[in-house]
């Protein structure tokens, strides 16, 4: 007994270790992506065009979708070009995709049989697989603000550090919700490839739904989308921190993991 670790912790650790290389690559690519956009900023800022007037002419749904408030400041530029797109959409979808393959993938490959032939509760597997993706979320949101700051300084600009930190701190609950959504889908859909696509599709559909209804009279309905509770533009451009949104997302993540536990508890492992 004494040489056995807590199962959920052991599963999370093993899973995270297996993702180490992929996590490093993802972090590297996103850093490169961020620096590439930052490198464009000086020429954009000095160009003789009124970008804010340009984006003002966009349809409201498009502005809503990409959180476009202002684009000519470094904060607005980063928000639109990087955070709204890469952090909200790209990383969110990527995490949902990874999480979508967890439980379903283990069951389909027979790995789950080996795990559950040990004295491990089904609950521990779900929680462990969820937590296994947390290091990636943390890594991204700890390293990227540093990369962003260095990049901004390198192009000769300044940025409010507090806002930069906040946009990442508030991203954590959002990203965890994306992971939890994927894990939940992974317990509902048997085939891992399908589960991954369903997880991506669900998150993207929610994002689209939010974008469309936000500028209509049914805007309250947009709240069902996780993307409604994380607004990088508001954080970076306006300095508005949606703490209630973060709380909602944290609760949503917990509920989704709980649903996955309930669903997986009595499920047949038919790989």
């Amino acid at each position: 007994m004494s040489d056995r670790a807590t199962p959920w912790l052991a599963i999370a650790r093993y899973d995270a270790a297996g993702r180490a290389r992929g996590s490093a690559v993802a972090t590297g690519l996103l850093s490169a992506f961020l620096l590439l956009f930052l490198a464009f900023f000086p020429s954009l800022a000095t160009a003789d065009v009124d970008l804010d007037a340009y984006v003002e002419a966009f349809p409201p749904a498009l502005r809503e979708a990409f959180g476009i408030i202002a684009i000519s400041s470094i904060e607005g530029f980063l928000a639109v070009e990087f955070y709204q797109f890469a952090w909200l959409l790209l990383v969110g979808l990527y995490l949902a995709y990874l999480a979508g393959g967890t439980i379903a993938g283990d069951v389909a490959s027979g790995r789950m049989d080996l795990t559950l032939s040990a004295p491990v509760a089904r609950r521990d597997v779900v929680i462990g697989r969820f937590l296994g993706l947390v290091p990636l979320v943390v890594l991204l949101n700890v390293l990227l603000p540093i990369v962003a700051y260095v990049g901004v300084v390198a192009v000769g600009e300044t940025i409010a550090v507090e806002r930069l930190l906040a946009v990442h701190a508030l991203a954590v609950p959002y990203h965890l919700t994306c992971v939890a959504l994927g894990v939940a889908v992974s317990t509902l859909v048997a085939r891992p490839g399908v589960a991954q696509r369903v997880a991506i599709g669900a998150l993207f559909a929610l994002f689209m739904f939010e974008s469309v209804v936000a500028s209509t009279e049914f805007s309250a309905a947009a709240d069902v989308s996780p993307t409604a509770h994380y607004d990088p533009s508001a954080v970076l451009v306006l300095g508005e921190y949606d703490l209630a949104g973060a709380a909602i997302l944290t609760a949503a993540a917990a509920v989704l993991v709980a649903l996955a536990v309930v669903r997986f508890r009595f499920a047949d492992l038919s790989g």
Partner: protein
Amino acid sequence: MPAIECRSLSKYYGDVRGIEDVSFAVEDGEVFGFLGPNGAGKTTAIRTLLGFLSPTDGGATLLGRDATDPVESRRARERIGYLPGDPGLDRDRTAAAFLDHQAALRGESSRDRLVERFGLDESRRIGDLSRGNRQKVALVAAFMHDPDLLLLDEPTSGLDPLLQEEFAGLVRERVGDGASVLLSSHVLGEVAALCDRVGVLREGHLVAVESVSDLRSRGGKQVRVRVAEDVERGDFERRGIMNLRVGETVSFTWTGEYDALIDLLSGYTVRDLDVVDAPLEEAFMTFYDGDVPGPVGGERRRSGGTTAAETPSDSTAAPGGDAE
């Protein structure tokens, strides 16, 4: 207390029958074999016992604990080792990382000894290992916590004959230390070599349970004899002789007493004589059909499904390559 007790266990996948009304017990210290063609329900039975599938009906206990109750089952699994025929291993992790993980979940009192015994290089990526070596990794994981009950599902598929022998030795050692074993196979020879009793599964039903020694004694003897005299086929066509072939040597399956055989041969000048246990397949098929020993591949009384092709037909060859 039996190591496994299965009471009318049934598992349907929707309308598709996995197993139906399977009842048997594996006594403490016993090696029990599940025998049957692929798709007979062997894997379903084992996975239901382990709680991977919830039974449609019936119940089971493992080491005295209710296998259908998640908490009880988990307690039982502390002392269970499980080896699937085609284990799901993480190909992109090293054997060491995988075994570390398994050890964290179940303990590793015998890990080092097993790794050394099987000559496993733990530093290699599992995906880079041969099929046999991958099976060794799973084997170490199944045995490294010195389990009291082993559930082995087609355990030697993919193992070369040498390793099969090594594996059999390991199973016998665990049994010697008091462990009980449930082993499934579609290869009769494998089951016969290791098991005390065999349960025959067919189309989801446990159609018979027989002790291996009974099965053997029923199978008769394979006799090959070369005599100085010229022999006619008619000389040997008598009760108790099956599968008669008359040529330079005379060969047949003898199902009577030894004395009668000696009487028969005493009429000849015997140049060469070879008497061995008839291949267990014949005994098995005989038994399977509830028929007296008859020529293999001959007409079968049973109408439903048993054909020579479905029934294990090769106990000596390595079973690799035709696993599910």
